[in-house]
């Protein structure tokens, strides 16, 4: 399977144009979604069910046509792997303060893929927390999920994704978003578990002042391998995007980050900003970064900044004057990076799970 292919290709020798998944994935269907609580104003159902509590959603083609970050081969995979789609639907104007929690408990040997569609109708707001975890740290298996999100006009969606899978898992996390006028999509991601993680995020800011905010925090240790592809397309006038990706690599971990801000002709007044901050902690790590700005419009601003490497000498000295050794300073700064993303999640239970996972990881 060829995934996360770049829109604007570059030298093949860099091996960044796409990721090729040679492993054959066999699904056994074990490990299912658990929707922990359904807050008022939200309808949860399956695409195939006809009696899911008054769901008047007849036409989901608009949702189906949303492009996801991993590309067409992933679409084909998920369509085949997951016949049903879990629907999360916020009715027009409903502001739902309680998050919808969708938990996937994936144990050793489990292998499953799922599709989730989130529809926030005009003026609604909703938070969906999806977390994938294993109760045993060394559990191995496969987990894939494709999430499509439609953010209606003046609606807002906060999507939280937390990967705390066992150390032998492969995880495909494919996300596609369309945001209408003055809609706002906020995604907070933490990728800590798993062995090989592939994340694709495509966002189409179609409407006027459509907004995207992404915060991604990761920790790759041992031989963990993380591949990310973000493509944010600005169609709408004054659409805005911000993407903040930070994390740390240790041992022999590898990480690829591709982030594209696509300022499409007609997106007058659009602003896109991308920041990457990578702390490299061991000799054997490999970090690849490809931040792309495509610009077909003049009245726009696109910026990108990256800082990759060891702790800055200023920060290291500051920490040392407070008594932290280099190693301790690195540890505390790694935690700090991850905490700053975790703090955006705003759900005590999820916080606790992340905290527990990290404490174990740093033992």
């Amino acid at each position, binding site marked *: 399977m060829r995934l996360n292919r770049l829109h*604007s*290709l*570059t*030298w*093949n020798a*860099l091996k*960044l*144009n796409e990721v090729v998944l040679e492993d054959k994935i066999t699904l056994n269907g074990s490990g299912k979604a658990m929707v922990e609580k359904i807050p008022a104003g939200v309808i949860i159902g399956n695409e195939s069910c006809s009696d899911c509590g008054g769901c008047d959603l007849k036409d989901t083609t608009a949702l189906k046509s949303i492009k996801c970050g991993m590309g067409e081969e992933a679409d084909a995979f998920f369509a085949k792997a997951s016949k049903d789609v879990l629907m999360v639907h916020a009715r027009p104007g409903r502001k739902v303060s309680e998050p919808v929690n969708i938990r996937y408990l994936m144990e050793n040997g489990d292998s499953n893929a799922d599709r989730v569609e989130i529809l926030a109708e005009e003026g609604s707001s909703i938070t969906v927390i999806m977390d994938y975890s294993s109760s045993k740290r060394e559990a191995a298996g496969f987990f894939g999920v494709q999430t499509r999100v439609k953010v209606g006009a003046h609606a807002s969606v906060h999507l939280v994704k937390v990967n705390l899978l066992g150390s032998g898992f492969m995880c495909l996390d494919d996300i596609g978003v369309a945001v209408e006028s003055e809609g706002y999509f906020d995604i907070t991601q933490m990728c800590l578990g798993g062995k090989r993680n592939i994340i694709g995020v495509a966002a189409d800011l179609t409407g006027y002042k459509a907004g995207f905010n992404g915060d991604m925090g990761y920790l790759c240790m041992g031989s963990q391998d993380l591949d990310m592809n973000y493509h944010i397309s600005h169609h709408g006038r004054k659409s805005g995007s911000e993407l903040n990706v930070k994390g740390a*690599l240790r041992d022999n971990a590898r990480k690829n980050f591709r982030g594209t801000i696509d*300022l499409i*002709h007609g997106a*007058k007044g659009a602003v896109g900003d991308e920041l990457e901050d*990578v702390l*490299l*902690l*061991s*000799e054997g*790590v*490999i*970090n*690849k*970064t*490809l*931040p*792309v*700005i*495509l*610009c*077909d*419009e*003049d*009245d*726009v*601003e*696109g*910026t*990108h*900044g*990256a*800082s*990759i*490497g*060891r702790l*800055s000498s200023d920060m290291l000295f500051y920490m040392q004057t407070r008594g932290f050794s280099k190693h301790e300073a690195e540890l505390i700064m790694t935690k700090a990076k991850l905490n700053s993303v975790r703090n955006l999640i705003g759900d005590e239970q999820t916080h606790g799970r992340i905290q527990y996972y990290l404490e174990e990881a740093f033992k």
Partner: protein
Amino acid sequence: MSDTARERTEVEDIDRSFYDFRYEETEDRFYKVKEGLTPDIVREISKEKHDPDWMLDFRLKSLDIYNELKVPEWGPDISGLNMDDIVTYVKPRTGMQATWDEVPDDIKNTFERLGIPEAERTSLAGVGAQYDSELVYHNVREEVLAQGVVYTDMESALTGEYEEMVREHFMKLVPPTDHKFAALHGAVWSGGSFVYVPPGVKVEIPLQSYFRLNAAGAGQFEHTLIIVSEGADLHFIEGCSAPKYNVANLHAGCVELFVGRNAKLKYSTIENWSKNMYNLNTKRAICDDGATMEWVSGSFGSHISYLYPMTILKGNDSHCEFTGITFAGAGQNLDTGAKIVQIGERTSSFINTKSISKSGGESTFRSALTIREKAKEAKASVSCASLMLDDISRSDTIPAMDIRTNEADVGHEAKIGRISDDAVFYLMSRGISEEDAKAMIVSGFADNVSKELPLEYAVEMNNLIQLEMKGAIG
């Protein structure tokens, strides 16, 4: 202020007509091979150039490689380039001269108009001038020769006392297998310069080679090989231009630079090919311990460019700086940037580029920074800024980084936008007209590059960016 009421201020295209002149030439004054690319044509070029046998073999092998390799799947479209239509070798029927008086008038007048003999008198230590496929003029100042500096055309170097040195270095840094157009270069290369600076020799004033492609439908494939020995210091300038034709011209030169221990090389280019040119040029430098490589690169011309000078910081404590500007106007798609590979410990690199797009021009900044496992304490910074002067143009930024050591400090900054209204307003509030304000901002934007250039070149660049600002449509 509503959009319709807003005064439109436009930055003019670069006036390239200055380079479009062409003196009357008679066909029989030139020798050229047939269009296209076949083993026979390669043999004919080799024979005409009196190559040593190994070079003929090298050319034929390169041709095989060329036929095997595919064009890249990324970058601007080059389907308008048909090798069957390109004349790969055009030789003026004159030998290489050491005084301008001996150069035939039409060719001499061409270089006069380009200001080359004038620059030679005032500010250069040596000049090579290539017209189509061969050098027509080469001269070096006595005092530079006396220092032991060798500056000659590649053909003389290849058949003279430097043959071994050439053979040892020729296309070792850029092998024909590197990419399709490097293979093409290996097969049909002709002309270019060979420079050798002995250990410890500091060449105080720059050497310059100027490449003029005058023949319609022709290709230019000059090879530049520069060896700067331990502790030596050189500034080399190359310039290029061509008159505009309605058929595709091709430039696939190759530059190989060897910078010795603690040596320093500065390589400046002002490229101003005409807008029918496919500029598929390859430049590469390798630095030994403590060496410094500085690139200054101005890309103004050509229809399509693929240009990414590469620096291999192999030695410990070696250092590279790349300063570039690209100006893409109507009908141009300029894909430019730089590649850096840091292998040695404590190596450092700085890339700083600017690009300007207008009148439908497309510019792409493309780079690759690689920091290898052993490059402990490496530092690198990549900074690129792009200015969009209207909404029919395009500007992309594609900088890749591959970092494989934790003991590194890498920073990157990219910015794309248009002239800031606030900046214009600030200048206008100080009594400067809108046109002048915008002109000031655009030239300020290009300033970091022009100040890296020798004065004459900075002037040429400013001539190139004839930023005629005019108020229109009230």
